[in-house]
């Protein structure tokens, strides 16, 4: 990935509203959790990869990923941001938008191929469960990055307990050594859980 003057840059076509540095768009860690992960921890293996992104929303993060990746399958189920997602994917040939509920991967199985990287950013109570259901898309040795929004998990348990529970259930599902990375510097109340899939 391209770094310059401490900024993460993205080589693709510039969209309206993007800030530009030396002719390339800035991938802002305050707006995108993937960029925040790159700033705080390490870069995920996105270059040339085949990515499944659950919870694509309006497609801003997806547009940055598509600059590096070979193809991004973007799943989103909310009708309002989907319109923007369509607009973004019309301008970029390697974004495949899917208007489906990530809880039911069987609905989009016929369109998606096995992927190297599964990124999930869904603020729902059953976030971990959704990720586990979508593991069928991951190749052996592929990476899972799960952005956990702790506010959506309910208030009956403490933060650490939720993280431990999710990490535990991911481990049972075949993710080896899920690593927990706090994104609090850029996104309050979010953590990333990153692991490799080897069932």
């Amino acid at each position: 990935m391209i770094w310059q003057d401490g900024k993460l840059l993205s080589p693709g076509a510039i969209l309206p509203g993007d800030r530009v540095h030396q002719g390339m768009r800035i991938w802002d860690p305050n707006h995108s959790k993937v960029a925040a992960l790159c700033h705080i921890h390490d870069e995920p293996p996105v270059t040339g990869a085949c990515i499944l992104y659950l919870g694509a929303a309006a497609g801003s993060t997806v547009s940055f990923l598509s600059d590096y990746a070979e193809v991004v399958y973007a799943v989103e189920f909310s009708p309002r941001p989907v319109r923007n997602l369509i607009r973004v994917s019309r301008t970029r040939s390697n974004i495949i938008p899917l208007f489906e509920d990530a809880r039911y991967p069987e609905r989009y199985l016929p369109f998606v191929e096995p992927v190297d990287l599964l990124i999930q950013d869904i603020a729902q109570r059953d976030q971990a469960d959704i990720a586990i259901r979508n593991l069928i898309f991951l190749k052996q040795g592929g990476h899972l990055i799960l952005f956990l929004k702790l506010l959506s998990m309910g208030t009956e348990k403490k933060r650490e307990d939720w993280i431990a529970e999710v990490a535990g259930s991911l481990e049972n599902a075949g993710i080896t050594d899920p690593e927990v990375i706090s994104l609090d510097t850029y996104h309050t109340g979010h953590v990333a859980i990153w692991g490799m899939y080897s069932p």
Partner: protein
Amino acid sequence: MAENQDDRIFRFWYEACHQEDSEILAPASPSWAAVIENVRQSRDNSELLPFPVWQEAVSAGIVPDRKGYLSLLRDVTIGLMIRDLEDRCDTDEAALIHLIRILDEIDQSISRLSEKIEDYYIALHPAELSGNERNISSLIETLSKDQTHPLSHLAKNIQRLRESRTLISHNVREYAAKSLPNMSALCGPLVSARLLAIAGSKKHLACMPAASFQVLGAGPSLFMHLTSGTNPPKHGIIFQYKGVHHAKRQVRGRVSRVLACQLAIAARIDHFRGFPDEEFIRKAGEKINRAGKLE
């Protein structure tokens, strides 16, 4: 040829783009809508096999290479998406949700602007602020008649905004009576429309427990209660119903609870039956009235 197409069973999405005369379809071609419809049907009947392999699409002669495969797939999924969006859109419901949002926004704009005008006027005419004889609406009326005043144009616009507010509120009433007949009979069309706008759809509303109805729109205080144990909110949006905010303080919680229970039933009738149930409305109204009386 179209008849043949309907009989075919597709195992992969790209087979639908391939026709007998070996012409490959693209979004510009006239039968593209039929292609999307075919893919959609096969998907909904779960006839499609998982994990398509792009090399097979190439060897079947449908796409030249991986790039072509991806761009065709993108065109198909965009088509599917738009088709699904159209399918999910309930025009009456969407109109109601967006009209009530517009209405609330207009209300807010009117009151903010009027307040600023009043501030301006009071600052320039401190002698005239005595007593209540000069309220905001009469002030705006006088300003709009005074052609030379710098704010007369704005005042006129506020009056016009009020007119459009009335028109929109008539529209909202109409739509609410049509799509939420039982709820509107219980708590008024505007309050029911606001409940619908927060819930997002009639289906969500029908699936909600009565307790959620009671606190719909009181999110911050509800979460304050859940996280730091303050008193729970008694009412959210339904406070705007006159039966709740005119009730005595002691019984307000009870009225809003009973109203929420009846609204939950009404929402289900609205969603699943879709027409007013006079018997239910009468009984529910009685229950709500009874809850509002002090023993």
